């Protein structure tokens, strides 16, 4: 009786082992090494450069921020939902980074230059985080930047209260100026903290 039961248990154990393959150690290590919460470009190429007018009164370009992670996003200050959510998320993420927060620069490029002048953007962004930098320019210049990043922006409505349907993802540019990843809208601040730390340490 005992021998039969032992045989049965051995059969069961063999079945479990057969159907529960664990990842090989090397594979598991590789998986954990490349995991980002954002979508990752591989290989990573230099992020398209731009030169726009900043809300701090200077020219904004990516070269200024070598050594930092740049979180680049596009929007407009009259945005009802997406932009406030994104900027609040990024502000929380920056808080979550603690002492490494100064290694991150958020750049918010307007898709609505008619209403978003530098002064207005500066006041708007300061409500989220005074370190956030807005960028604006001529309609043509902004359109060229959007094209380089694959960003769309379409005016909706004809009156003065028109809206802009725009790409809501956030681009993650590493300290070497490479476009490493793209975070879709809706991620939590902790996901940005995770990915920024990864980019700063990788």
């Amino acid at each position, binding site marked *: 009786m005992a021998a*039969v039961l032992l045989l049965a248990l051995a059969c069961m154990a063999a079945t479990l082992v057969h159907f529960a393959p664990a990842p090989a150690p090397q594979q598991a290590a590789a998986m954990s090494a490349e995991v980002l919460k954002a*979508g990752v470009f591989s290989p990573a190429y230099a992020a398209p450069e731009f030169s726009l007018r900043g809300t701090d009164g200077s020219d904004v370009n990516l070269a200024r921020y070598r050594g930092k992670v740049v979180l680049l996003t596009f929007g407009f200050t009259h945005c009802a939902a997406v932009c406030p959510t994104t900027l609040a998320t990024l502000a929380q993420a920056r808080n979550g980074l603690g002492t490494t927060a100064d290694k991150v620069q958020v750049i918010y490029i307007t898709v609505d230059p008619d209403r978003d002048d530098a002064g207005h953007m500066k006041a708007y962004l300061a409500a989220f985080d005074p370190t956030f930098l807005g960028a604006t320019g001529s309609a043509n210049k902004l359109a060229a930047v959007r094209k380089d990043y694959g960003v769309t922006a379409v005016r909706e409505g004809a009156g003065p209260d028109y809206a802009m349907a725009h790409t809501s993802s956030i681009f993650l540019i590493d300290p070497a100026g490479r476009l490493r990843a793209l975070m879709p809208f809706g991620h939590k601040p902790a996901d940005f903290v995770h990915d920024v730390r990864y980019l700063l340490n990788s």
Partner: protein
Amino acid sequence: MRPSSWKRPLLAALSVVVLGTLGWAALAPIRVASHEAAFEIPRGTFAHRMHGEHVDIFPQTIRLTLGLNDVLVLRNGDSVPHLFGPAIIMPGQSFRLPFETASTYSFQCTAHPNGGLSVIVDPAPAPGWGRLQWRWYELTSAA
């Protein structure tokens, strides 16, 4: 008819094996070696589209499951950049996008004839019937 004395322990043992296996299959977490569902945009896709030819490189709808294959990998093997959602994938470049929320996602995709791609992300198989079904499907597929 009563089973003979030697059959009784055998039946008991078989019952233990069957119930144990079913219990494990229904409750044990599912582990997979890779979470990636990889697709390649082949060379010449853009040129074919520009000539008005039908391009059918991968499904119009991609179905993923959380915890199993929840990372979409698109590799651009074409000679021109392709747009997937807001991501420009350069020639020779891959874009690896993990999903953590079950939902239906719609992306702009220049590799598709109508310019769009849907990704349906299903929830992970739940402990119990869901995991049992999944393991049965895997077993029968392998067989």
